């Protein structure tokens, strides 16, 4: 817990939204959660320039914007030559909640999705998920972005291919015990 709070204080988050009220709302929530630095842009083109000037740890973006919408913004971000920028976790906050839109956002490379109305708890949970359960970055011919599968291993029985300790505790616990990166 303390570890997560420390990480929030060191975070630099960029908000991209053409609505002034949503920018103010998200800024207030992130600051109240003690996020260290919160920047904001009113459109995606300015946001791309801002990210090139100074990368952010997390980008929070709206979907419906002009001249570039949130989906195209993420696609451009994921295609950037700079690997640091390309891998920036993106939280999409939108009133579009249809399943096909969620899938489209995922396929464009969005890391987490938050449906409006926005709540403090909703933002906190998505940020925590990005920090504590980061998805591996995939770069394939037709997709670049966070792995589209959740890394849940719901197998409840013993893992026959694992070591006795792994079979007992699970791979993530073993990695944590050994001080290694989680699998």
């Amino acid at each position, binding site marked *: 817990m303390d570890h*997560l709070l420390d990480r929030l204080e060191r975070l630099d988050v960029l908000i991209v939204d053409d609505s002034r009220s*949503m920018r103010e*709302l998200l800024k*207030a929530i992130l600051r109240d959660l003690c996020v260290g630095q919160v920047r904001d842009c009113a459109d995606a083109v300015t946001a791309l320039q801002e990210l090139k000037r100074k990368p952010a740890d997390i980008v929070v973006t709206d979907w419906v914007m002009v001249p570039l919408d949130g989906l195209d913004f993420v696609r451009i971000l994921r295609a950037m030559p700079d690997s640091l920028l390309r891998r920036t976790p993106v939280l999409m906050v939108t009133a579009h909640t249809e399943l096909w839109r969620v899938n489209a956002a995922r396929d464009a490379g969005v890391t987490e999705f938050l449906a409006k109305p*926005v*709540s*403090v708890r909703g933002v906190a949970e998505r940020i925590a998920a990005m920090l504590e359960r980061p998805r591996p970055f995939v770069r394939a011919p037709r997709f670049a972005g966070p792995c589209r599968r959740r890394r849940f291993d719901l197998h*409840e029985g013993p893992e026959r291919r694992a070591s006795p300790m792994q079979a*007992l505790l699970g791979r993530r616990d073993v990695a944590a015990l050994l001080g290694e990166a989680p699998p």
Partner: protein
Amino acid sequence: MSLPRRRPGLPRLVRPPRGARIAAAESNLAALAADYPALAAETLAELRAAWAEIGADPAAPGPHARLFRAAHTLKGEGTSFGYPLASAVAASLCLVLERGHARDPLGRPAVEAHVAALGAILDARLAGGGGELGARLMLALRDRVANGAAALRARPEAPPPAG
């Protein structure tokens, strides 16, 4: 008392900040909600301007897109700021616009009513569900939408072009 053992293979729980920090943030959010009508003034002005432009030139595509974007913005943010009635009216407006009512003289009264209702809600700072007034407003809007849809359905089809 022993703690239940976690099933092997399940990831550790993601733990967002809890307790005092969340409560403080929610309290600050409630304070920010008091400023919502002022914060939304820009979007409301855009909604009214786009609707006025459609009135002057219904065929111009730009104002239709701007009207929908403004309605969509109000739909998404109203409830976040404690104005669910504004969100509900904006959501209804989005549906009406998606059905093309703003492009047809028979459908326009429904759009006009939604634009006026959103202006009234924000100008009067009608937070929450709006109580009895809010319920009456939603019923009246539903009637307008139903009347518009019925008028559009009842319109005789245009005769096929000669020749």
